[in-house]
């Protein structure tokens, strides 16, 4: 049933040009950065005399691409997630889902899975694009896998938060703005505590937990953080929709 709701969401995304335009625009941006990364690699490395200054091509190129990706997703996810529930609220299509034999949890999970599946296309494409470096070089696949997992968890967290804000309002634009502001605050939170990295508030920052992935490290603590983050917001969304049924 979750799959059926997710399929419906994917169908809606690809029924309008929106889905295709976003996919192509983002891939264009990532492709450009990839190309620039490869060009810069030679320029920088030919200037780096000492061995300590030299980094591998995987790390050099992938870091620019994944850095850009995490930044762009901050804008892209709110735009994609804003419609998920608020649009249904506005066009009064929620009863269609509510009167079907599916639970609220399945509806919310289905919508979440639908959006994450769409974004996963990008993540897979980025990984494939970076893997083409392997044709003329010997690259570090572990680094790409760690970054992909990190980026995937990051966009899944973005999506969960976006889904929750989308359930709060009837206006997709309001949902998008709220999501963006909340995500942005969570991203830069650790900057405020630069002098005191052990601060509890700083460890709430999404960016901080993404950092270990971007240096190629898969840390179970960070995975737990993202999983908890996602679970929290999905639960809140279910509760918000349940309040609709109870309070009307």
């Amino acid at each position, binding site marked *: 049933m979750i799959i059926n709701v997710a399929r419906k969401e994917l169908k809606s995304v690809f029924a309008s040009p929106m889905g295709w335009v976003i996919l192509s625009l983002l891939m264009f941006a990532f492709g450009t950065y990839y190309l620039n990364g490869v060009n810069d690699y030679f320029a920088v490395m030919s200037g780096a005399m000492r061995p300590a200054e030299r980094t591998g091509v995987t790390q050099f190129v992938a870091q620019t691409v994944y850095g850009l990706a995490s930044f762009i997703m901050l804008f892209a996810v709110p735009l994609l997630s804003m419609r998920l529930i608020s649009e249904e609220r506005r066009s009064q299509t929620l009863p269609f889902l509510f009167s079907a*034999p599916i639970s609220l949890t399945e509806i919310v999970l289905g919508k979440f899975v639908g959006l994450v599946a769409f974004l996963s296309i990008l993540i897979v494409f980025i990984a494939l694009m970076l893997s083409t470096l392997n044709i003329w070089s010997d690259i570090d696949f572990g680094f790409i896998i760690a970054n992909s997992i990190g980026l995937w968890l990051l966009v899944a967290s973005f999506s969960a938060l976006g889904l929750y804000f989308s359930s709060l309002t009837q206006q997709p634009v309001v949902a998008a703005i709220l999501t963006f502001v909340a995500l942005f605050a969570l991203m830069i939170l650790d900057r405020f505590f630069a002098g005191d990295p052990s601060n509890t508030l700083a460890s709430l920052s999404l960016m901080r937990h993404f950092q270990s992935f971007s240096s190629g490290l898969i840390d179970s603590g960070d995975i737990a953080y993202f999983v908890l983050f996602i679970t929290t917001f999905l639960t809140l969304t279910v509760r918000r929709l349940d309040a609709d049924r109870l309070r009307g």
Partner: protein
Amino acid sequence: MNNFTVEAIELTRLYGGREAVSNVSFTLSKGEVLGFLGPNGAGKSTTMKMLTGNLAPSNGSVKICGIDMMENPKEAKALIGYLPEMRPLYKELTVDEYLTVAARLHRVSSSNIKKAVEIAKERCGLGHMSKRLIENLSNGYQQRVGIAQAIIHNPMVVILDEPTVGLDPIQIRDIRALIRELGSDYSVIISTHILPEVEMVCDRVQIIDKGKLVFNGAIDVLKKQRVGNKLLIGMHNPPSVDAMLKIAGITEAEALAGGLMRVRFAEDATPAEAIVQAAVKHNWGLHQIAPDQTSLEDVFMQLTYQEQSEF
């Protein structure tokens, strides 16, 4: 085990302390069309939302074919097809795509989806619209898609909230015919405030006013109420009221403007012939005589008015 398809037991719904629906109980058997009648804001839609599990009742319970909506919502919902007042259509999809989604979400097995979509389209006269975007369909066709969505999984109960609002007369006629047809296979509940519609398509009527059920019975009972023992007589030289009262069986007469006269007669009397004879004899210039029917609107007004006078 009784064979009621819908059982509503003492349904009550509070909105901030105000009772939108209070203590509504009724049952529906297989193959019946139930008309839900009431003025705006009477609680029709609220009751329907509770029946379909879109709204939790503050009190009372709903059973669909014996399955409790609160305890087993999934099983109960699988037996219902619901078309809310605002059509829940995904306008960016085509008719086929939308109905496929509806079939999938209503647990139609994947091998039967194509067939179910075809059957639903055929029943609702949508065959030639398969590839059109719902957005581009006319109001009437969108309504048909809404109904198709509600019957795609062969539910036991079909609940349609104001299915003919905003349609042109021909479309209304088609939709009514469709509802009648559905009534032979499923239990149907429709809500409306158009009274003749109820008379045309329903077997049973429920009138709801201010959240309370004020009438619940077969449509024939309502019809009987409207045909009173009254005649409307038109004459060029109308006699006095007293002269009319002399005719056997007439208990009451009332002179109206334009030479018309309304007479009420006793339960078992048939005074029409006597009136015609008297008219010829006294040269009243009779040009019209017909039973005076109270319109359904009047009956409706009476029923809702009685309720008001209690306050």
